[in-house]
């Protein structure tokens, strides 16, 4: 969590009590509604994964100034509401996005005034001595602040932890499927097992059928899988696509991938989200730290729901976790410390086993082009694990904890963390 976050929340109460109105709850809702209307009118380009598309989409200095004025105005309006008597999460969420908007527009303003030069090979080459751009991207994707040195430290400690477990598993993990029907049959078996047991850990919810299908246009740079909601994708049902490029699929990548993309990962999360009633402005923002963090976090609950029973599946999960951990190091390395491609390739080969070396090009390219996105999985999962440990120490049930997190699916981790800590 950001060092200043708690202080800001306290100040909010201390400073603003004299300005509070009689019905702050309604006033906050009204402010959120007008924020939403004015935000839409600004037509702010959607934040893209690829930083090059993002920089290309930055508007004119006039447009950016107008956005800055908008966020400044709402910062002032929000300060006049007594945050101790309103929906705390909603207040903090609005406050969070206003602060993010001000940070972004300040950075964009400077960038435009300094010639709007597109950085090549990542964010490091930006004229930005304090590396505020990278810190902004980190917060944008993680939903919370984290220092670049800590990102590398988390990555390295995770590499050590995972390697020590993998060393003890020692199994032949190259077994593969060559037929899509076999893969689908395996996923269906996993789906059936998961559905029988999820009630133990997760709130009751009517989970629609999810269809496992081959990724139609997968290529060498396609990730292992993806979840697609039927409304957004146009498919007849919610689907989970697996990458069967080259007609080879490693059996070790069944359980964790299913848990991540389907149940209790994205499919459960997405289905649960549909039961929530967010404020209109919340639909404009999304938080990879919250949803990818959740999907990554639940992969560690396999045994509790009848999955991850054999060493092959455990090894598959850990090997992918190893990749995610090295991505953390590369991300801060490329964008904050300015590592070149050759250094990244060397590090990849040093930290990962030989059968994963072929992924170096794909992964380094991804981390270079999508600053901070790769952090959202591990940083998000780590935060959720920390919160669960606190919950368990307080005697909260796993099911209760997961319900709390799912109830806050529309929020960034910074707000979730503060809200969680407010629970007694």
């Amino acid at each position, binding site marked *: 969590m950001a060092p200043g976050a708690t202080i800001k929340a306290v100040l909010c109460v201390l400073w603003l009590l004299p300005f509070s109105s009689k019905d702050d709850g309604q006033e906050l809702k009204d402010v959120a509604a007008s924020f939403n209307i004015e935000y839409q009118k600004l037509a702010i380009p959607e934040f893209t994964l*690829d930083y*090059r*598309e993002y920089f*290309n*989409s930055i508007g004119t200095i006039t447009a950016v100034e107008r956005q800055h004025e908008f966020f400044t105005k709402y910062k002032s309006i929000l300060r006049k509401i007594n945050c101790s008597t309103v929906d705390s999460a909603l207040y903090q969420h609005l406050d969070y996005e206003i602060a993010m908007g001000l940070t972004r527009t300040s950075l964009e303003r400077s960038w435009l005034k300094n010639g*709007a030069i*597109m950085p*090549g*090979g*990542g964010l490091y080459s930006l004229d930005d001595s304090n590396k505020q751009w990278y810190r902004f991207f980190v917060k944008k994707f993680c939903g919370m602040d984290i220092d670049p040195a800590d990102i590398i430290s988390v990555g390295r400690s995770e590499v050590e932890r995972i390697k020590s477990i993998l060393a003890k598993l020692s199994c032949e993990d190259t077994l593969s499927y060559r037929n899509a029907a076999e893969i689908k049959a395996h996923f269906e078996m996993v789906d059936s097992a998961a559905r029988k047991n999820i009630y133990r850990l997760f709130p009751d919810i009517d989970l629609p059928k999810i*269809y496992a*299908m*081959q*990724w*139609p*246009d997968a290529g060498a*740079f*396609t*990730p292992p899988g*993806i979840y*697609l909601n039927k409304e957004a*994708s*146009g*498919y*007849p*049902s919610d*689907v989970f*696509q697996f990458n069967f490029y080259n007609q080879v699929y490693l059996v070790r990548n069944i359980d964790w991938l299913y848990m991540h993309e389907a149940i209790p990962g994205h499919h459960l999360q997405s289905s649960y989200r549909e039961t929530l009633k967010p404020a209109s402005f919340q639909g404009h923002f999304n938080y990879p730290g919250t949803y990818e963090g959740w999907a990554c976090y639940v992969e560690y609950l396999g045994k509790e729901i009848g999955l991850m029973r054999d060493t092959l599946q455990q090894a598959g999960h850990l090997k992918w976790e190893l990749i995610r951990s090295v991505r953390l190091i590369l991300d801060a390395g490329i964008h904050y410390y300015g590592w070149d*491609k050759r250094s990244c390739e060397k590090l990849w080969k040093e930290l990962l086993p030989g059968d994963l070396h072929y992924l170096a*090009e*794909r992964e380094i*390219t*991804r981390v*270079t*082009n999508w600053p901070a996105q790769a952090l959202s999985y591990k940083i998000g999962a780590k935060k959720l694990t920390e919160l669960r440990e606190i919950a368990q120490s307080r005697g909260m049930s796993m099911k209760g904890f997961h319900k709390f997190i799912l109830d806050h699916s529309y929020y960034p981790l910074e707000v979730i963390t503060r809200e969680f800590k407010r629970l007694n």
Partner: protein
Amino acid sequence: MRSAILLFISLTLSVNLFAQKESVLKRRAFMGIQMEMLSDDLRNMTGYKEGDGVYVKGVVPGSSAEAAGIRKGDILVSVNEVKVKTPAEAVSAVGRSRGGDKFTYVLYRNGKQVNGSAVYKTFPVEKYADLQIEYTQVSSVNGLQRVILSSQKEKKKRPLVVFIGGIGCYSLDNPVDTTSSELQVINTLARNGFTCARIEKPGMGDNAGQGKLCSEIGFYEEAEGYIEAIKMLKKRNDIDSSNVYIIGHSMGGLMAPLVAARTNIKGIAAYGTIGSNMLEYLVKTRRTIAQAYGWKADETDSFIKDYCECAAWYFADKMSTEEVAKKKPDCKEYLSVFDLRSRKYNEELYNMNIPSEWMKFKGASLLMWGASDFIASEEDHRILADAVNSVNPGKAKFVKVPDSTHGMETAADFMTARTSPGPFNKNVVNTMLSWLREQQ
């Protein structure tokens, strides 16, 4: 990542059926559905086990498909009694239809056959708050060709910039996606006071069914379309005929001096073009292609040697790609880019002395190469700049644009340019704009 969405639009259509004799080119038809191949997975999900068709993933609002009642989740079986099995076949089935034409369709919805008919809506046009887009046409040896003009709305005489694209048979008329590099160049120049013209290649876009096919014509025949269009445009009152420029992208850079020789052009800006004979160009750029693939020195050497053999058989010995492939199977893939065009086109290209054509040009020249462009070579651009300056000192300028791919996108190096290029690199058009302003 989401699967690519295929738009049911006749953008790249090249159908040359019974050419209509029109003096005004009508806008083509717009079906407006997003499609996917009917895979076994989709058959299982939809329960549609028998017969062929394409899955409708989405319907574009305001399209003919929406008006005809076609819905997301339908399986489109035929259009105008032509059965469709792939999105490409569905695009072809729309064929050379025009807005206002009637069409029929057969589809399956929830296991039941639905037959319908409707009238095609016309293909959308580009619309911008600050630009005027005019759709006109020119008659050339290739038939009627669409000419699209982009300029600021205020009526006044303006300098003209004609954009000529690369080797492929593709349309420059795609209002559904205005993020293409070509359109970014055109719109930026238009917003800065130039009138920008695009001339559709024969058989492409609205030209479908109007005359010759892009894939069948020669290099010089293609040039005729640009020449006729420039001659026509120079007669307009709103064009400053003494202030006309060509921007040649890739193969358009070879076309530019040929067109300029017959149209009295003030300047040419070429990006990612060829400046030496075809065989030399191929050798140089196979090495940069190998770098983009990360091949080792020994693999690169074998690749270049193999490629040279294929190219020599094809160009010097005049063998067809099939004959060459019999001698060395890899040649089929290596030479596939030349199969995009006719034998005549490729032979004319091979026989051309490119520096000689540029040396005949008396106007100003800008030779731009993107530093991440592994398809074209830096040396070729320097060769052309030096060639022009050797006969017209100071007339040519070479500029290396950092982080720019062959497609004018952003990428830090050759490998990134191949695997994951970013969006349009604005430095390309900013370089063009600065140079154009210097010429005013």
